[in-house]
């Protein structure tokens, strides 16, 4: 178990290191940041001074080492626009993003998983068809279209809810629904196919043939086995919470990390983009790590056996 854990941790660290390197390479490939920030017609002395101030005049490998060292020290640079620490700027926005993404996650889990299980247990029934039709509709409608349709109906036509901003809890309702619906659809579809696969296994038939009541077969044999692939996709959803917030926050002018990212990309505020990149990679890696540990809890076979062979 300890060896498994260290292996996983090493891989997580390697991934983060790759993301940092990626950010650095892309950053330096993209042209001279000094020129970009100062504008094409800035006086050369000002550009030189800017380079010296940000350490852009050192050889590339030195810049890379310094960059890596700074990140290890938790220094992610300052926003090239307003001079504040990028990490503070991002950290300020995190609560607003969590205020949307956590309720949305609850919606996804509490609708998606039961719907998928029910659909699988009543395969080809009316309920199954309904769930699947809704699921397909849920993930073919992109979140910005769904969000705008909700605004059109509930804010413009009916006037029940505000269309954007962050003044009260009522402003959060439409964005949370927008985020929750798509994820619930994906989860329902996934849970259904995981369940169907398990229900087709011979151990289910054996358990039924032995006379185990169907309810116990489902709870004792089917659900624990279907949980394993479902945990993977839930882990992926947790890891990509911030990415999912990018579009929805923009639709509803919600001042979270996603909105910050879009503005930073449009302004080419590279320190902030980098910081969010690392934050996203960090959440993704952390949630993958938790998922891997959960596998061990859920499936005793994996604790001893090989993890790579899937």
């Amino acid at each position, binding site marked *: 178990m300890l060896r498994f854990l260290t292996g996983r941790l090493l891989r997580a660290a390697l991934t983060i290191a*790759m993301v940092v390197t990626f950010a650095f390479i892309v950053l330096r490939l993209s042209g001279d940041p000094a020129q970009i920030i100062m504008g094409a017609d800035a006086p050369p002395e000002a550009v030189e001074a800017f380079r010296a101030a940000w350490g852009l005049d050192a050889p590339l490998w030195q810049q890379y080492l310094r960059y890596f060292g700074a990140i290890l020290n938790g220094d992610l640079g300052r926003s090239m626009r307003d001079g504040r620490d990028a990490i503070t700027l991002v950290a300020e926005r995190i609560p607003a993003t969590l205020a949307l993404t956590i309720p949305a996650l609850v919606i996804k889990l509490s609708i998606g998983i039961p719907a998928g299980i029910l659909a699988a247990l009543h395969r080809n029934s009316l309920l199954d068809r309904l769930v699947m039709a809704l699921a397909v509709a849920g993930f073919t409608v992109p*979140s910005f279209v769904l969000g705008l349709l909700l605004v059109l109906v509930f804010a413009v036509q009916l006037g029940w809810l505000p269309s954007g901003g962050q003044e009260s809890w009522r402003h959060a309702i439409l964005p949370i629904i927008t985020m929750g619906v798509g994820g619930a659809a994906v989860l329902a579809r996934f849970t259904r196919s995981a369940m169907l696969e398990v229900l087709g296994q011979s151990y289910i038939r054996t358990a039924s043939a032995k006379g185990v009541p169907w309810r116990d077969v489902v709870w004792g044999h089917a659900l624990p086995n279907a949980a394993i692939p479902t945990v993977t996709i839930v882990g992926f959803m947790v890891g990509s919470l911030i990415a999912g917030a990018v579009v929805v926050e923009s639709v509803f002018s919600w001042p979270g990390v996603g909105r910050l990212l879009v503005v930073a990309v*449009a302004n080419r505020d590279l320190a902030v983009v980098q910081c969010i990149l690392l934050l996203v990679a960090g959440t993704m890696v952390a949630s993958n790590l938790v998922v891997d540990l959960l596998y061990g809890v859920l499936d005793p076979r994996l604790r001893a056996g090989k993890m790579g062979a899937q």
Partner: protein
Amino acid sequence: MADVSPITPPAFTEAPKRQRSRLPLPIAFALGWLGLMLAVAVLADLVSPYAYTALDLRNRLSPPIGLGGTWLHPLGTDELGRDVLSRLISSIRTSLLIAFGATLIGAVVGTSLGLLAAQFRGLVEQAVMALVDFSASLPFLILALAVLAFFGNSLVLFICLLGLHAWERYARIARGLAISANAQGYAAAVRQLGASAWRVQGRHVLPNIASTLIVSMTLAFPEIILLESGLSFLGLGVQPPATSLGSMVGYGREYLTRAPWILLSPAAIIVTTTFAVSLLGDWLRDRLDPTLS
């Protein structure tokens, strides 16, 4: 019963076959819709009533037919008096071009890397799999945003960038399938006959694993349409004066209360197209993928 001939008449064996080969209604719809979209994209200049940038200042924000509009502008106009139908046609062309280009790039890059990994194993495989892990560790939207922030935007870069979407999926599938195909008799046989690695992979292994890859392409295609329209919606994808389905929606958002038709028609096209491709993909997967029962 006794005097019924033991040889079944041919009519009886053929009937169910013909029935099975008939297209289910949703698939016929999906194919028809995609055919229509393709035709519109190819014939854009011929079917478009106006140039997509042409202004008609006397008919600004005029509503579509059914909401008080005229046949002059069947789907209405935007606030500069540009014809929504013409812009829609141009957008369909741009969005489909990007989606096709990007899907092809992703499939070619991913499959080649996967086959390379399967052919050479060892260090090459390790490197490819490390890249796969890296790709899987970041949501693609974030990666794309970072690249756009760093490099700015151009249509070619944008297509290549979207082409990287899902490459790791093809790589993983191609590698797994090719490894098992390599272990089968036919690959060993052509190798014994002296065929080069290139020939074994390209002429023998690839055709045998193609159906699964084609299914992944139909699954990646709508995702790319959604990604493109999402990024263009945010103003970070296709740049004006070019227009795509997503940028039309993003632009129409500002007129949501006064002229919702500007965004409703491209939104409907996005939803219908992704829906049609998903239907087709699911159906193809059921028919082609031998691993599903």
